């Protein structure tokens, strides 16, 4: 099983998904991220899905789970780079990703988190 690498940029963890995600890889990523948030005291997580061609209900749930789980660990998650075709498909599939913050691209996502981290 491949693992998705997690990079550290100051107080933010950056996950850039570059592979076609297998279900086990998705579960491992959730666990790895939870561990790393606590280990580094990270305050933000950016998940870059620019390269992700489809988000089905399993991957969609991963995004929601990561957002909720990181909130419990006092970190905020932003999903960046969602392709237009993926967004349309997600809606038709019935997934609204309610609690998940999104931004257009990595830069906007980091800006959004920086705004939050500036606050005490």
């Amino acid at each position, binding site marked *: 099983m491949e693992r998705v690498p997690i990079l550290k940029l100051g107080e933010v963890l950056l996950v850039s998904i570059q592979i076609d995600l*297998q279900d086990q890889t998705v579960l491992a990523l959730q666990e790895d991220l939870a561990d790393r948030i606590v280990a580094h005291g990270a305050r933000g997580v950016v998940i870059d899905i620019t390269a992700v*061609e489809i988000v*089905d*209900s399993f991957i*969609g*749930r991963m995004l929601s789970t990561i957002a909720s789980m990181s909130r419990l660990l006092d970190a905020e998650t932003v999903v960046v780079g969602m*392709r237009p075709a993926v967004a349309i*498909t997600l809606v038709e599939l*019935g997934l609204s990703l309610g609690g998940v913050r999104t931004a257009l691209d990595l830069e906007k996502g980091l800006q959004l988190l920086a705004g939050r981290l500036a606050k005490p």
Partner: protein
Amino acid sequence: MEEFPIVSSDDVVRVRQRCRTAAIAAGMSLVEQTKVVTAASELARNTLVYGGGGTAQISQVTNASGRNGVRIMFSDSGPGIPDLDLALRDGWTSGSGLGLGLSGSRRLVDEFDLWTEVGTGTRVTATKWAR
């Protein structure tokens, strides 16, 4: 027509890739490709998780008016679905899913057919046409 087994979650990834290739070959737009590949991913996972594994078939099809499309079929010899109405409902799952696989993939394609018999198995056929 291509046929291959679904016995591990690697195979679900392979189904997506083959379905994408077929969708491109059928001349689908990017959105159409994304929809049919997403449906294939949902149905393949069901075959694996609930059907205990099975087979995927992916074919290119052409209708009477010359439109091209992709047909995906998933069959397993698993437990079958006792209450189909319930299973096709948004949000209903007998396991730990979101209950959107069947209902959602039905919305993503143009034709959707589900045959199931308790104790015998399940076969889902879905077709999407290029516009």
